[in-house]
């Protein structure tokens, strides 16, 4: 009896009807209809495979908790899973994700953005196929910039100066200069990676003069400059920061490209038609840097049907499905060719200019111990920019030491 219950609770088993069932674990999608459409099309062409979609939590950290628990217990009920851009080194090193070098060969990889392929590569092998990518971009209120004769800012200094002029001119207590993601979570790392990188520094060396400069700027000119950011900026994730911008509460906004569709929708946004999208600012002597985000598909090492699983992955990452997701949900495709696709560009006119941003997006440090590095960095960054009195160099030195210690532990 117990065995029966056990067996029937496992997905992925073949029954007598000759159909192979594979189970796919993903986050709770914002767009279930598009997922269904893609799966229906897959079923049409692959009558011998049935896909069972299992949706997990929408937060990346929570999905990681759930998936890693199951893989740790060698759970065979997941065949295919989505991977956040920072997971593959861990999944590869531990042996949870199957290497896909044979089925995802070099010439196929060249069709994807380099950053996306780099993210699924660990020690020379690939462990996933990129689905879509993300990269930080700047949203600006074009109506306000026009009103005050200001250009789209190219440097962080210009951004603060421009916001200042607009705030002085508008004299609206509900209007702030800049809205971004600065709560203590993964998004803070992306925001700070962009600031630090555009000063020529690296998050892995927070005590370098370049990194310190970016941190001081974030603390003194963004978080603690009166009126520049809302008081709650240190608790904002994507949603809160976007709500503020979409309700007309900020001149500038840093977010992922998905925010475009929401900003442009007059039903969801009070700033529809008054927004331009641009590359992120830089420091005068640096280059604009966007953090690379995005997701890929991997095959579980414990899957009983790796071939069918890969067939599904290669369908989901095909031009056809990436086009579908780009056109219907605004997900930036991981395949280069789609940035010249008329259907994709009709739905996302900004993709054309953004191609260079996606091409140059910077991945977060790749390490199998990334979750530990991330937690340490999150705490450090949040304290450094949040405490107006704290000594940033001292905190940075301690954080840098801790991070290197975590990474050294792996070497042992």
């Amino acid at each position: 009896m117990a065995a029966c219950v056990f067996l029937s609770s496992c997905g992925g088993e073949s029954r007598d009807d000759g159909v192979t069932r594979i189970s796919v674990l993903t986050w709770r999608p914002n767009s279930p209809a598009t997922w269904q459409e893609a799966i229906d099309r897959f079923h049409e062409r692959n009558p011998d495979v049935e896909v069972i979609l299992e949706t997990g939590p929408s937060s990346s950290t929570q999905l990681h908790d759930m998936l890693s628990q199951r893989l740790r217990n060698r759970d065979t009920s997941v065949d295919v899973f989505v991977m956040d851009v920072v997971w593959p080194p861990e999944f590869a090193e531990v042996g949870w994700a199957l290497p896909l070098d044979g089925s995802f060969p070099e010439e196929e990889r060249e069709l994807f953005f380099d950053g996306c392929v780099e993210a699924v590569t660990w020690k020379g092998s690939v462990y996933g196929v990129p689905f879509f990518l993300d990269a930080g971009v700047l949203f600006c209120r074009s109506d306000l910039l026009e009103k005050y004769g200001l250009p789209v800012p190219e440097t962080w200094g210009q951004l603060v100066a421009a916001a200042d002029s607009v705030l002085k001119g508008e004299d609206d207590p509900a209007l702030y200069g800049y809205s971004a993601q600065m709560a203590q979570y993964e998004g803070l790392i992306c925001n700070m990676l962009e600031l630090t990188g555009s000063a020529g520094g690296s998050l892995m060396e927070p005590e370098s003069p370049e990194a310190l400069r970016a941190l001081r700027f974030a603390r003194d000119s963004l978080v603690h400059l009166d009126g520049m950011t809302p008081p709650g900026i240190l608790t904002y994730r994507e949603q809160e920061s976007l709500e503020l911008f979409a309700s007309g509460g900020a001149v500038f906004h840093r977010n992922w490209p998905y925010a475009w569709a929401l900003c442009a929708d007059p039903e969801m946004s009070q700033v529809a038609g008054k927004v331009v999208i641009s590359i992120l600012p830089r420091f005068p002597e640096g280059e604009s840097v966007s953090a690379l985000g995005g997701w890929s598909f991997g095959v579980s090492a414990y899957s009983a049907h790796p071939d069918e699983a890969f067939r599904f992955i290669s369908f989901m990452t095909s031009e056809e499905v990436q086009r579908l997701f780009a056109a219907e949900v605004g997900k930036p495709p991981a395949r280069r060719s789609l940035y010249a696709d008329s259907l994709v560009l009709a739905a996302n006119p900004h993709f054309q200019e953004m191609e260079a941003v996606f091409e140059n997006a910077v991945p977060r440090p790749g390490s199998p111990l990334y979750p530990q590095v991330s937690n340490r960095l999150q705490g450090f960054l949040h304290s450094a920019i949040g405490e107006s009195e704290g000594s940033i160099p001292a905190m940075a030195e301690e954080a840098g030491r801790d991070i290197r210690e975590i990474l050294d532990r792996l070497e042992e």
Partner: protein
Amino acid sequence: MGIIMMAPAVLFLCGFLVFPVLSTMVNSLYRDSPLTGREFCGLDNYRRLAGDGQALDTMEFTFIFVMASVSLEMAAGVLIALAINRVVTGRGFFRASVILPWAVPTVVAAIMWKYIFNDQYGIVNYLLHGDSLRMYSAWLARPSTARLAIILADVWKSSSFVALIALAGLQTVPEELMEAARMDGAGPSRRFFRITLPLIRPALLVALLFRVMDAFRVFDLVYVMTQGAPSGKTGVLQFFGYLKMFPEQQYGYGSAVAVVVFLIIAVLSVILVRTLGRRMMTE
């Protein structure tokens, strides 16, 4: 025969209580993560814990949280119980409404309090500053006010539990005793401290025991309201243990945190139960 009769209870206890506790203790002596594999490391995890700045920050807040929230809950709970005890009509209705916060799942309560303290549309900012938006502050962004907010949320939720137990205690206070005291000219505060409080003390000690144990295990309020930000200053031990155990997958280190929480609660419970027992005996 006796052994057979006792076996189910003993097995149940072993299976669901002793075994998990022991296995967590054993796990805490290993360095264990999917990457490094599992290897015995003695008390290394505890040594590391003692020197971990973030752990010490969370430890500090855990103690502050327990002391502040439990003492406020005890005071508020007794006041609520006294008030309800005086209500003559509709006592059932009032009693039911007192349990309401206790019946709300903590996660829901935490989300509600997160909105209450929101920097843009939170009611706290509105009550304090009205329409002067520029005066609004982000309660959950600064360590001191975020700590206060978490404590308040817990007081709101758990005072009702203390009130309920105190109310049960109050019903056992004989009316004749109060009548006699009144005749002898004892004022309300004298009656409360000399008669009511000593008589409901056993009930209050039970409430105290439960609250202290419960408060040490706080997790959901912190998880929803601040995630321990900044850098663990509003974190509690249980949340710290979760971070190590799940997102970071350091099972040994996370187990060590769990064992420390368990030991603290166990020691405190023993102290409380012993005083409780002695008081019960002497009175």
